């Protein structure tokens, strides 16, 4: 008997069930099909303006920084200002996301923009987030050429643009949007929920930023135009 068969046999013996009980099968199929929502905290259930404000607070609680911009056209200046404030070279790397290509980077003449994944040599990256979650100040990143996963983790400083209209109150809303975009059960290779910059408490329970991932996380919210 293979390991698989042995495990299933013991599970069914212990539970005193068989694999072909239609009631059990229906119950499982229904849950997978309907994916009912559990308890969703009231905290995030707010009209848009208040939701954005909650998102801002929660991002800051998570020890990231955040600016709210009136338009996409303001992104280059905000990125340049952030790099300057951190005493970093005016250089960023980002993926193929069309929304990033539409940003008028040329407005910042000294800003060097390269495209592609990270090999660990870049100090700062810019990603475009699929969504934000106000409940916990979380950014939702999807893997792929648009926003390579390595850009989320290897550079020392991660800058993330999110459209205000994409900030939801809760995680459940994001899953539904993803189902709409990709199909009922499909997922990108990786979905990264990012809540603040990397940290560790492993040395004497002292909480320090910048463990393995980015030392700082900067969020740029673009208001609806």
């Amino acid at each position, binding site marked *: 008997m293979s390991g698989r068969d042995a495990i299933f046999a013991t599970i069914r013996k212990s539970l005193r069930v068989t694999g072909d009980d239609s009631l059990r099968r229906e119950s499982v199929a229904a849950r997978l099909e309907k994916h009912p929502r559990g308890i969703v905290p009231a905290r995030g259930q707010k009209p848009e303006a208040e939701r954005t404000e909650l998102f801002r607070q929660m991002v800051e609680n998570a020890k990231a920084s955040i600016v709210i911009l009136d338009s996409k056209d303001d992104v280059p200046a905000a990125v340049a200002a952030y790099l300057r404030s951190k005493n970093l070279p005016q250089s960023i790397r980002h993926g193929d996301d069309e929304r990033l290509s539409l940003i008028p980077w040329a407005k910042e003449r000294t800003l060097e923009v390269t495209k*592609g*994944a990270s090999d660990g040599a870049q100090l700062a990256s810019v990603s475009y987030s699929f969504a934000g979650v106000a409940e916990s100040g979380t950014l939702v990143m999807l893997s792929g050429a648009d926003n390579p996963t390595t850009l989320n983790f290897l550079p020392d400083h991660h800058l993330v643009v999110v459209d205000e209209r994409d900030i939801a109150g809760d995680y459940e809303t994001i899953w539904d949007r993803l189902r709409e975009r990709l199909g009922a059960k499909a997922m*990108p290779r990786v979905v990264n929920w990012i809540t603040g910059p990397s940290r560790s*408490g492993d*040395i004497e329970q002292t909480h320090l930023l910048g463990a393995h991932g980015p030392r700082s996380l900067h969020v740029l919210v673009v208001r609806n135009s």
Partner: protein
Amino acid sequence: MSQPVNSPHFNANARKALDDAFLQKALARSEKGFIERRKAAVEKLPEYDALRDSARDLKDHILAHLDLYLEAYEKNVIASGGHVHWAANADEANEIILSICKRLDAKKVAKGKSMISEETGLNAYLEENGIRPIETDLGEYIIQLRGETPSHLIAPALHVTKEQIEADFRRAHVDLPPERNLDEPTSLLAEARAMLREKFLAADVGITGANFLIAETGSSVIVTNEGNGDLSQTLAKAHIVISSIEKVVPTREDAGTFLRLLARTASGLDLSVYTTFSTGARREGDPDGPLEYHVVLLDNGRSNMLGGKFQEMLRCIRCGACMNHCPVFHAVGGHAYGWVYPGPMGAVLTPSLVGVEKGGQLPNASTFCGRCEEVCPVRIPLPKLMRNWREREFERHLQPAAARYGLGVWAAFAKRPAVYRAATSLAMKMLRLFGGKGRLRRLPLASGWTEYRDFPAPEGETFQSLWKKRGAAR
């Protein structure tokens, strides 16, 4: 191969732990932070208790349908281009992982934190077979340098002080200039970051655990604050997930229920910094990510726990809150428990997985204060489950003869009230004679008590005989 069991020596381990000044300092330092951070996070979420109830009910539903959710999970992993491997025990899991590494000609493995791999003794097994696993979680890295095992579920190096870490780094990082200052946690972190960055970039295979497996999509979920699990799995040629079978949850929404509890209970964050849902290998057009994605599903005795007296233990989501609130853990730390899982959850799980003959000490080493159950995010009745183990031991005559005999004598009297009254009246009078100063500094048969405490002397007569005597006066 699996991790050797040192649990039968709990008492000796505990004594050693109590005499270890470094450990006692480390334990005293961490106790308050865990408790306060959890409390603050929980108080900010009014739905917290309702979430606990629903998480408990959801886990019970999952466990009752575990076979079917595992089938659905397997189907969806395969559909998304991943591979599923089933391991009935530790040896099988290790062999599966080794064979994947060998096929890929892998020499270096970057490892995210995984208690399941501690259970199987994976690191030692890979090393014996010429493969170098590097733990990348900072705490795990520190204890790997020290040749130790984790002493806590989420803070594996809880027992180590920063001075000890500095000494370990100076010993292991041979290129480190002696004049480099490593006095502060920040400088230690910077050193570890630089050192491990090279390891991530050089790794052939990345191995991580899983906090949850999602049946709906075939995804594995890990949570970390450091990002080490992400670097381990993103940069290598293959990502191998090692997980136990009870980690499966039905849907993404259901994972959310547990995620809302996990970080708050464990570390006081609303959410861990990185929550990562991984589904299959690198896709067409992806510029990064592993080329292969494997999941190794370990049973190792869990399927036997279903449907029985210990099924509730399989609800555990490994947050560590039970040990963070345990007076025994606070006194002796995690290593005294002698196997992979410490604290109250370990006291129930260890005998389930290694047998009560080896793990039976642990469920006895509890005051039953109940604080573990009070803080458990999935409401596992830990004291009740520990008592179940004591019953198993009693039935099988596994308890020490002296304890059994003492209890038996007591029970024999207690079951005969008239004899009891006569005997205890006499005994208390005698004890009183020796305790004229109000307390006894030494007491035969109770040296465990009087080694450390005085024994308050009885008043002399029993309440029942006095009550009878004074009956007329009432």
